[in-house]
């Protein structure tokens, strides 16, 4: 038996042969996986026009912009979402996070009840009394919701085809097919999904699909008093959201994961996770 750490016994010829053999094998297997990866999103690949996200479907492609510089942290969106969609207590389809920066470099992230009752209490740092008196230096609110990704991890893991994407780019759950295995809840890197204890099926933000198909705006967008949430058709260059996307510097959450979210953020800080 040849140990990998004793190369003295291996001739140059044998070494080159092994390299060529394993290299060829991995190239063949690699091309196989590339092919399956290309077939991953048939609804996007099937259409020859589907070059970018704005060309998927028959015209309308929805987008969502969150302006974190405008959010005042009132929690109106959280309450409106709960009332509109009958979200059970303790679960959230959308929530607001409060980021507070202290001079010692610590960042405190707080979201009591998802910000449903506002942010009246100052965040506690569990510090000695003299350090608790230290005033923060910087702070802001970040509303969160489903990112309606183009390359969705949650749809890929569904074993029964209950999670899917509409031609307009909205990620939905088929509550008749869902078996409640909660794979998608674990797969979502943004924590946007939960298992509804009333229906025992996966549930998530639908961008208020029942409202937008009737020509209304999502409940959180309507209720926002600071215009921090903008929703619309991104394939129409004249729409409000297209103008905002054209005139602002936007960022997505966790771009390094490559899920390509359709929810974009204005003024996102590097500390936001």
């Amino acid at each position, binding site marked *: 038996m040849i140990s990998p750490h004793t190369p003295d016994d291996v001739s140059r010829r044998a070494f080159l042969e092994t390299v060529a053999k394993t290299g060829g094998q991995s190239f063949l297997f690699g091309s196989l996986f590339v092919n399956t990866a290309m077939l991953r999103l*048939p*609804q996007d690949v099937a259409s020859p026009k589907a070059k970018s996200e704005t060309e998927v479907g028959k015209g309308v492609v929805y987008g969502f912009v969150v302006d974190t510089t*405008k959010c*005042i*942290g*009132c*929690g*109106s969106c959280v*309450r*409106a979402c709960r*009332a*509109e969609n*009958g979200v059970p207590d303790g679960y959230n389809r959308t929530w607001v996070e*409060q*980021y*507070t920066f202290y001079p010692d470099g610590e960042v405190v992230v707080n979201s009591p009840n998802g910000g449903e*009752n*506002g*942010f*009246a209490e*100052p965040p506690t740092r569990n510090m000695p009394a003299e350090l608790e008196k230290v*005033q*923060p230096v910087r*702070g*802001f*609110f970040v509303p969160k919701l489903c990112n309606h990704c183009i390359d969705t991890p949650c749809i890929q893991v569904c074993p029964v*085809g*209950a*999670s*899917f*994407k*509409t*031609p307009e780019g909205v990620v*939905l759950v*088929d*509550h*008749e*097919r869902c078996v409640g295995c909660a794979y998608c809840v674990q797969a979502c890197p943004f924590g946007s999904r939960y298992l509804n204890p009333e229906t025992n099926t996966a549930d998530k933000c*639908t961008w*208020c*699909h*029942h*409202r937008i*198909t*009737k020509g*209304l705006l999502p*409940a959180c967008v*309507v*209720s926002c*008093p*600071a*215009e921090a949430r903008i929703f619309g058709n991104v394939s129409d260059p004249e729409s409000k959201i297209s103008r905002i996307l054209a005139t602002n510097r936007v960022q997505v959450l966790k771009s390094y994961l490559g899920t390509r979210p359709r929810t974009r953020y204005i003024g996102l800080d590097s500390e936001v996770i």
Partner: protein
Amino acid sequence: MRHAGHFLRLVALVAVAVVGFLFVRSQVVPKDFGVTGHFRLSAIADEGKREARHIGSDACAECHDDIGKSWKTGKHHTPQCENCHGPGLMHTKVVAEESTTAYPDKILKLKNAIKRPTGIQECKWCHLRTFERPSTLKSIANVEAHVSEHKGTFTKDTKCIDCHNPHTTLVTFDAKGLPVKPKIAP
């Protein structure tokens, strides 16, 4: 060909298994599954069937026109009616004496199926000062301090709407310079 019978039996078994699988599959898988992707196509329409529970401030103003007008022309027109009063769908159904038996909404237990705001909690959602809120937003750090600053006495029954009209934010003063309790609803 001594063993042909064995092969035939095996082929028949496989054929029965394949036909059985295809039959069960045709019964179990919905007809419109896989039409445009790995999902049931009619699930999109199912999701859109629900009624919108937030009816919008314009719909509120159709009946409550006085309040609607003062709200729309006043300074406080960015928060919508339903931000404080809750969704209005059930209210319109109850007032129009429609049957609401199909709806399990908690809000149906309230009078006229609409929330009566407390007059202090709703204000705090936006106007209590926290470090993260922008300085352009009018906010107070402490309700008690705010009341004593304006020569009032804070009790547990003190509400913001004792002085401020929540629909317009206006405060009216009497001859002595003290705030008058605003007339909010007709």
